[in-house]
Structures are given as structure tokens and as C-alpha cells.
């Protein structure tokens, strides 16, 4: 009976866990592109500015970001609620980490590719969009998957600012059942994180294998 109740409690948090992970990844995947280009800009000011932002965001623990966003952002009567703060915070952190991953991927595309594209007379935009980025994506897709699995677990930090995701639900169940049964929801939540990350790892291996077959 305890087991069923604990499971029901944790599963209530599942939609928010998924929402947090997916929206943060979406923000990160899109936002990281301009930042990664900025990290490689010819203009030293742009480059340093992007470097500063990335290191700042990565250097501060996620939990601090969430508190700053939830309690520190007040513009007039506007405040971020808990869920918004968590999405923005995890999104920002994702931008910073993915920008670094993208940069590595772009730089790993062989020099000869850009040169051939240049010699063909392709514009710098076409070189980037049609030659460099597709190849960089192949290179970074396993790293993105690894990052996503980590992000999935980091969403649990949102419980500290009262976002009712899985760990938050586990905590409230434990509080109401201060016996050994209180451990159950945490074990179940742990199991769920593993189950959720399995398809990501699987999909990434499939995708990676397919892209590599196409390339090599």
C-alpha cells in the first residue's frame, strides 16, 4: 500500500520534471548557437563578453541561479514565479554548457571543409549553415545527449524553490510518512530518472551510428 501511494505521489511530479528538462534543453539548444559563434568571433570584445557570460553562468551553482531568479528579479510588480524561474535558470545554464559543446564541434570540423567551400565561392553564411553546422551537429550529438541526461537529473534542484516536480513530491510524501516508508518515494524517483534517461541514451546511440555511417 505504501509502495503504491509513494509511486502515485512521485508520478504526480513527472510532468513537471519533463517540462523542465525539455524546455530548458530547447532554450539551450537554440540560445547556445549565437553564443558559440560569439565565443569564436573575430571581434575581441564580442569574444570576451561571451566568454565572460559563459564562465559566469557555469561557475555559479544552479541552485544559486534559481534563488536569484525567483527572489531577485523584481521589475515593478513583475516577478518570476517558481516554475518560470526554474525554466529560465535551467535554460540559461543549458545555453552556457551547450555553447561550449557547440564551439568544440564547430572547431572540430576539418579546416579543409571551409577552405573547399571558400574556394567554391560560397558566402560565409552558406559555409556556416550548409557546410560547417551540419557536420558539427554530427560531432556534438552524443555530447548533447549526455548533457540532456545530466539536465534531467538537475531539474530536481527546482524542488528547492517549490516547483512540484518528482523530488518535491517525494519530499512531501516522506514528510507525511516519517517511517521507513518515507524512503520509498526517493527510491522510486531514482528509478524513474534512470528509466527516463534510457531512451535518450538509446536514441543518441542510434542517431550517432546513423550519422557516422553517412559520414565515414
Amino acid at each position, binding site marked *: 500500500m505504501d509502495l503504491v501511494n509513494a509511486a502515485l505521489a512521485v508520478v504526480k511530479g513527472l510532468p513537471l520534471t519533463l517540462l523542465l528538462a525539455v524546455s530548458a534543453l530547447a532554450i539551450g539548444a537554440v540560445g547556445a548557437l549565437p553564443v558559440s559563434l560569439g565565443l569564436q568571433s573575430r571581434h575581441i570584445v564580442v569574444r570576451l563578453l561571451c566568454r565572460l557570460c559563459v564562465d559566469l553562468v557555469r561557475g555559479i551553482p544552479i541552485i544559486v541561479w534559481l534563488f536569484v531568479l525567483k527572489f531577485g528579479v523584481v521589475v515593478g510588480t513583475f516577478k518570476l514565479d517558481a516554475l518560470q524561474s526554474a525554466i529560465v535558470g535551467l535554460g540559461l545554464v543549458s545555453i552556457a554548457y551547450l555553447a561550449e559543446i557547440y564551439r568544440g564541434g564547430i572547431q572540430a570540423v*576539418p579546416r*579543409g*571543409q571551409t*577552405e*573547399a*567551400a*571558400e*574556394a*567554391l*565561392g*560560397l*558566402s*560565409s553564411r*552558406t559555409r556556416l549553415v*550548409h*557546410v560547417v553546422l*551540419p*557536420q558539427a551537429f*554530427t560531432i556534438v550529438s552524443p555530447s548533447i545527449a549526455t548533457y540532456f541526461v545530466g539536465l534531467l537529473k538537475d531539474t530536481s534542484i527546482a524542488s528547492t524553490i517549490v516547483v512540484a516536480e518528482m523530488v518535491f513530491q517525494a519530499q512531501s510524501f516522506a514528510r507525511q510518512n516519517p517511517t521507513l516508508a518515507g524512503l520509498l518515494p526517493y527510491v522510486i524517483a531514482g528509478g524513474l530518472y534512470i528509466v527516463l534517461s534510457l531512451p535518450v541514451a538509446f536514441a543518441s546511440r542510434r542517431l550517432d551510428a546513423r550519422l557516422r555511417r*553517412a*559520414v*565515414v
Partner: protein
Amino acid sequence: MALIEGSALNAERVGIDLEHLSKRYGDTVVLDDVSLHVEPGTVTALIGPSGAGKSTFLRCINLLERPDSGVIRVDRHVIEPGKLVTSRDLAALRRSVGMVFQSFNLFPHLSVLENIVFPQRKVLGRSREEAQDRAHALLSRVGLADKANEHPGRCSGGQQQRIAIARALALEPSIMLFDEPTSALDPEVGLEVLAVMRELADEGMTMLVVTHEMNFARDVSDTLVVMADSHIIEQGDPRAIMSDPQVERTRRFLRAVLER
């Protein structure tokens, strides 16, 4: 179909004029006041020891390397590297000049056909049908009609290099640059590539070829240029230079290559 659209009769014959090109990386001088004229419709072979500046010299022509000083005249384009080069000038220059690399540099994420189609669409604004027709025609010309839907990675080195030649020709350049096109290939496979180049030369393409293939240099090229230590040390008729080099450095280099 000929490799060059329209071929022999009405082909645009364009030469190259390079005047006083100099280039250094830090303290290393790569090119020291090098000048060269290439007559339209001729083949020039560029030989010499490695580190002589051959590749850099070649790459200056389409500005993959920016010389520190000098003047580049290609077709109607005049580029003075010391001055600002607009992206429009650059695009126009590169439209006239095709280039083939030692490492082929085909785009690995695109099919063979798409490697040839996509630049035509982006650079010349051709329709998909037109670009595909041209690509298929060029592929069969280099003997690879059946490879259109393959991925480049599944092709041998010699095939990849022939595809790279087709890709460059699809943009109808008036000049072709070859940077050691057979150096990454084993000798037998290199022959397929050399055969295509020979045909291209017969059709009157203006070609500048950095190479270690002495037979190609002797039999196909109209002019042989020997570079060493950032200079052109000798140039002229290939047979004359090979049988009777005037400069000691050339003699030493040729002996090393031919005795191999």
C-alpha cells in the same frame, strides 16, 4: 559532352598575372617577390621541394591566403591584397577560379550528386533540374555516373578526387588550380585523376598544377616552373628544363625526384 561547357571554340580563354607577391608568417618568408604570368589555355606545372612556397603561391590566386603585397590579375579581376578586398570582389574572383585539393575536401554529409548540385545553386543560382543535369553530365564525363547517390566516404580516393574536379567544373571556372591532386593517392589510382586532368588540358582549360608527378609535368604542361626557398628559380619549356636544368638547385631537385 566536353568537360568545359561550350569547349574549344567559344570558351573564354583567360590567363593569370601575378606580380611581386610576397608573404610572410611572422619571421618566416614564404613568398619573396614572386611574379608569374600564365597564358590563357595553357597548363603550368609548379614543382619544387616541400616548403618552397608552391602551395601558398597557388592559394594566393583565389585568396585562400592573403599575400602581404603584390597584384593578382585573373580574368577581369584585379586584386591588390594590401588594399581592402570587398566580399563582392572576392566572390567574383572565386567564380572564375576552381580549385582541387590534395585531400579532396568533398562534403561528407552530402551525397556525391548533392556535392556538385548545391554549390551551383548557391553560387550561380541555378535551378535544381539544371544543376542536376550538369552534375550528372560531369559525373559521367569523369566516369562516375553510377556514384551519384553514394556518399563520398564510400568512394575510393581516386573517385573522390574526380568528383571534386567535377564539383569545381560545375561552376564553369575559366581557370583551374590543382594543389597536389594525386599526392594522397596510390600511384595506380592517381592515374585516373591524371587522365581527367589531361583531358581537361586538351580542351584548353587554363591550369596551374602543383605536383610531384614528373611525367605529367613533362608531357602535359606547357610551362614548367621550379620553386625553391620562396622564389621561382627557373621556368620554361618542361622538356628543356628536365633534360638540361640551368640552376644547380633545380638540378639537385630533379635528380632527387627522377632517381626515385
